[in-house]
């Protein structure tokens, strides 16, 4: 288990214990957190699980795979901290990770 903090666009914060091995997207969806849609179910085929990774965490995450940056092109208001949460796997290294949710996904 690792603690992942999801901060909604209105600053409402949710800290959830997510089992290691799940993605940050799954941690949100399985706990009925609004704001992460994940329309394609985690196959990196849409961009509706888009999050902004906290500045202090951004560099610590494993690098993006090739297709992820392409998919982020079609996300809602991406910036340089943008990631697809389905591609961030939870592990002990990520305990305490903070991600912010965009104002909408689509």
């Amino acid at each position: 288990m690792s603690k992942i903090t999801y901060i909604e666009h209105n600053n409402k914060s949710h800290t959830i214990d997510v089992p290691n091995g799940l993605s940050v997207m799954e941690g949100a969806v399985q706990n009925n957190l609004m704001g992460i849609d994940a329309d394609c179910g985690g196959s990196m085929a849409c961009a509706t699980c888009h999050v902004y990774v906290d500045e202090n965490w951004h560099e610590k995450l494993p690098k993006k795979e090739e297709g992820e940056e392409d998919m982020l092109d079609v996300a809602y208001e991406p910036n340089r901290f943008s990631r697809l949460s389905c591609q961030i796997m939870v592990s002990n290294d990520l305990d305490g990770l903070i991600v912010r949710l965009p104002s909408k996904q689509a």
Partner: protein
Amino acid sequence: MIKTDVLVIGAGPTGLFAVHQLGIIGLKSEVVDNLDKIGGQCIELYPDKPIYDIPAISECTGEELTKNLLKQIEPFETNFHLNERVEELKKDVSNWQVTTSKKKVFITPNIIIAGGVGSFEPRKFSTKDAEKFEGKSVFYSIKDKNLFKNKKICIFGGGDSALDWAIELSNFSEVTLVHRRTEFRGAPSSLETVKKLEKSRKIRILTPYQLNTIEGDKNIKSISLKKEDGKIEKLEMDYVLGFFGLIMKLGPIANWGLNLDKKTIKVNTETFQTNQEGIFAIGDICTYPGKLKLILSGFHEAALAARACYKLARPNEKYRFEFTTTSKNIKGRLGIDSNKK
């Protein structure tokens, strides 16, 4: 007005197999899909990606799966109504009446919603200004390129649509291509052409920029772009085009009085009927305890929903279960000569 036994909404794998299951029990169906092609997510999102969990097929691509499903339903000569979205639903005595975006009207006792995660629609600019000009000087697709002749055009996006249109319109317009990062994801050959056109000053490329504001009254006068570091760039402009791919939206179905759970429709797992008699939901769009969003689950759901449609389509006949291997009726419907082995 089109009368049919079943209206299938969605031409993805689940919708296509529903046509098959309806066809073998002798029911006629019509299919509506908002995309311009058959195949749903398989074609739009991952035509080349391999799928490994279709029973008895160790590996196939989304495109191959679609092609095979189409071949399987060939004998039923089904009509596809593409580029059309279902809009309005009305109850007409014992039938449903569905009107599409092209004002086509279907009269049917049964509707099978196999809509995946909703209908595909272009992703739009996030700035509010864009809404005001949409359809007049802001576009997400091009119907008549002559509109842009000798005008100042700003194209946003980094994929093939953005690159292809930049190349095409640079023949007779002043084109600026804007993308949020320096890398483009379109085909390498298109990118090469774009770079050449940039050198010969036929296309101006601005990266990493995003649209900030649009100014104008009736038509656009100028736009401003924002660089990642906050720097603002103002440009005189006539038209703005955005190519950011497609998103999925439930659309008007959300207002059909169905029992929704987020973006999915609750169903009874015996028949896959929704809370409305004669309206069924199968595939990714339906939900029930234990639901798996797999193509194979969609196939199972299609088989049960098709049988349930029989009752309302043939109220005076009794449905009898038959196997395709032995049934003369089914073979007849498939156009197979029963005398041959």
